[in-house]
C-alpha cells in the first residue's frame, strides 16, 4: 500500500545504540550504584536469621495493619522458609524495595511538580499513558542493552513500570486538596514551601500512599517478568516451572509471590490510613 515504510524500529535502535556507545560510562556508574543498593539490602536481610526477619516483619505489620495480618505474615513466611523459598523470597523483596525507593525518589517530586504546573502536567500525562500501556516485556529490551543481564536491568525495568501510578496519584492527591485549605494558608501568609509541607502533602497523604501501594504492586508483578533477563528471585522459579512444565514448583513460587504481595499491600495501605483510624 505504501511505497515506503516509516523506520521507527531503525530510529529507536539507532537512538539506543547511540546512547549505549556515548553514555556507556554513565550507565555503568548507575548500574554499579543500583547493584550496590540491591546487593547490600539482600545480603543484609540474608545475614539475619529468617526467624529474626520474620519477627521484624510481624512487628511492622502488627503496628501498621493489625494482628490478623501479622499472624498471616508469620504463617506465610514460615511456609516460605519451609518449602525452601527463603532466598528467592529475600532476593525478590530487596529488588522490589530498591525499585520502590527509586520510584519514590523520582516520582514524588515529579508528581508534586505536575500538580503545581499545568504545563508540565499536560506534558507528562501522555508519557505516563505510554509507559503504562506499553507491554511490560518491551522494557526488558532497552534495560538489557543499557545494563546487560542480571539484577540491575530487572530493577530498572521494574522502576519504569512502577513509576507512573505514583506520579499520577501524587498529582491527583495534591490537586484534590480543597481550594479553601490552600487559600487559608495563603491568607495567613504561608510561603510556597510551608503550604506544600504543612498543608498540601499532609492532606494528600492518603492518596499519595495509595500511589505507593499501587506502584509496589505493579513492581511485584514486573519482578516475575524481570526473571526472564536474569534478575533472579521468585520469578526464576516460576520461569523454570514454565520451561520444564513443573507445575508444582511454579505454583509454590507463585504462592510465595502472593504472600509477599499481601504483606506489602497491607503494610502500605495501613500507612495511608493510620491517621484516619485514629480520627474515628
Amino acid at each position, binding site marked *: 500500500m505504501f511505497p515506503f515504510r516509516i523506520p521507527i524500529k531503525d530510529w529507536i535502535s539507532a537512538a539506543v545504540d547511540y546512547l549505549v556507545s556515548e553514555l556507556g560510562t554513565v550507565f555503568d556508574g548507575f548500574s554499579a550504584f543500583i547493584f550496590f543498593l540491591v546487593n547490600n539490602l539482600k545480603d543484609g536481610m540474608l545475614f539475619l536469621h529468617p526467624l529474626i526477619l520474620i519477627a521484624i516483619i510481624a512487628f511492622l505489620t502488627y503496628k501498621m495493619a493489625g494482628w490478623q495480618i501479622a499472624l498471616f505474615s508469620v504463617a506465610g513466611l514460615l511456609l516460605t522458609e519451609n518449602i525452601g523459598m527463603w532466598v528467592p523470597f529475600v532476593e525478590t523483596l530487596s529488588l522490589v524495595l530498591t525499585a520502590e525507593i527509586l520510584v519514590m525518589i523520582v516520582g514524588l517530586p515529579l508528581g508534586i511538580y505536575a500538580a503545581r504546573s499545568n504545563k508540565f502536567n499536560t506534558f507528562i500525562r501522555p508519557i505516563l499513558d505510554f509507559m503504562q500501556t506499553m507491554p511490560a516485556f518491551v522494557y526488558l529490551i532497552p534495560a538489557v542493552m543499557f545494563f546487560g543481564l542480571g539484577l540491575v536491568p530487572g530493577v530498572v525495568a521494574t522502576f519504569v513500570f512502577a513509576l507512573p501510578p505514583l506520579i499520577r496519584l501524587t498529582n491527583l492527591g495534591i490537586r484534590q486538596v480543597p481550594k479553601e485549605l490552600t487559600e487559608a494558608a495563603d*491568607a*495567613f*501568609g504561608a510561603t510556597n514551601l510551608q503550604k506544600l509541607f504543612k498543608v498540601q502533602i499532609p492532606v494528600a497523604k492518603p492518596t499519595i500512599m495509595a500511589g505507593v501501594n499501587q506502584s509496589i504492586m505493579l513492581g511485584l508483578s514486573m519482578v516475575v517478568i524481570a526473571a526472564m533477563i536474569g534478575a533472579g528471585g521468585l520469578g526464576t522459579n516460576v520461569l523454570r516451572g514454565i520451561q520444564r512444565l513443573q507445575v508444582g514448583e511454579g505454583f509454590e513460587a507463585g504462592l510465595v509471590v502472593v504472600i509477599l504481595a499481601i504483606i506489602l499491600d497491607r503494610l502500605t495501605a495501613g500507612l495511608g490510613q493510620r*491517621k484516619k483510624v485514629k*480520627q474515628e
Partner: protein
Amino acid sequence: MKEKIVVRNLYKVFGRQPGKALKALSEGKSKADILREYNQVVGVNNVTFTVYEREIFVLMGLSGSGKSTLERLLNRLHEPTSGEIIIEGTDITKLSKKELREFRRNHFCGMVFQNFAILPHRTVLENVEFGLELKGIARQERRERAMKVIEQVGLTGNEDSYPSELSGGMQQRVGLARGLLADASILLMDEAFSALDPLIRRQMQDELLELQDKMQKTIVFVTHDLDEAFRLGDRIAIMKDGRIEQVGAAEEIISTPASDYVRAFVEDMNRVAILTAGSIMEPVRDTAFPGDGPRTILRKIRKNNLTGILLADTKRKLKGYIRAEELVSHINKHREMEKIPLIPELIHQPSVVHNDLPLNEVINTYNNTEFGPVAVVDDNDRLQGVIVKGAIIGALAENADGGSAVENGREDKETN
C-alpha cells in the same frame, strides 16, 4: 473614625483579555454582554468604598454578585485587574509577592471560610496555632496563646481533638480562633456561618459580636443572608453584578434604598427588629419655650393643628408636655389677667425614648402612653423628633407581608 481599608475603582475580570473587557465596561456594556461578546467574566466592576477601623463591614449579595471575589481581592487571593486597595496607607496592589506575604502576616488574621477550611490532619490546638507557626513563633509561646483563644471561643477540653470529631459549629469555632489568634487587625470572613444550621448560626453571630467587643478587629464579613448582614454589620454594602448598589447602616438602607434593586431586596426584611426610634421619628413641628406665656403656646398649638406641644429649652433639652385642652381651660379661667402664668400643673411628663431603641420596644412605650406623642432624644437628652401614630403603622404596613419571606430566606443556602 480612622480609615482602615480604602478601595478605589477596583475591577476584577476573569479571562484572558481583561483589557478588552475593561474597555467595554467603560463604554457602558453590561456584564452579560461582555460575557457573550468576549467570553470574559466581570467579577468586580468599579467598586469604591471605605472600611473604618474596628467596624464590622458586611458585603452582602446573592450568588454571583461578586461579594466573595471582592473579599478575596482585599488580600489579593485574587489579583485585581485594575484599581487601588489601600490598607493602612499601603497600596497592596503594588506589593511584590514577598512583600505581600509579609503584609498578609502582619495585617490580616487569615480568613474564615464557609467550609471551615481547617486542616484535617491537625488537632484543634495545632490548627489554631497555624498562623503563629507560619511566622516562626516558638512552640511554647504559641501554645500558651492558642490555649487562651481556645478558651475564648469555648473550645476548652477539645484542644486535642481532630476536626472530624467536632460538629460544624465547633469546627467553625476552630476557624474563628485561628483567625483571632493572629497578631493582626483585619479579619476576613467568607460566608463563615452559612453552612451552619439556623440556631447554631444565630448563636455564633452573637458570640462573634461579643468577641468583637473584646478583640476590636476590623472585620469584613461576606454573606448572602440579609438577616445576618443586618445583625452583624455596622455598615453594609449591597452588591449586584459586581457593583456596590448601596453602602450604609441597616436603617439607612431600609429607610432610603438607593435603587429599586435594594428596595426589592430589603422589602423582605423584618423591619420591627431593625428599625429604631430614630429612623421612624418625624421632625418636631414646633416646641414651646419655658419663657412662653400660655397664649403664645396656644397659638403655636393651633397654628400646627396639634393636640398638645412639647416644652423644651433653647438647648432643645426636653422639659415637659402641655395638652391643648388643659391649656384652653386654664386660659379661660384667667381670661381677665393681662399676663397669665404658666403653672406647673399644666406641664406633664412626656413619654421619652432614646433614638437607638428598636421599633418593637418603641411600640411598647407608645402603647403605654396615655396622651401626646413619644418624644425621641439623643445621648445628651436633646429632643430629636417625635413618634406619632402614623409613623409606626406606616413602618409596620410596609413589612406586612415580609415576615414569612424572611423565614424562607434564612433557609437558603448559597450554592456557589
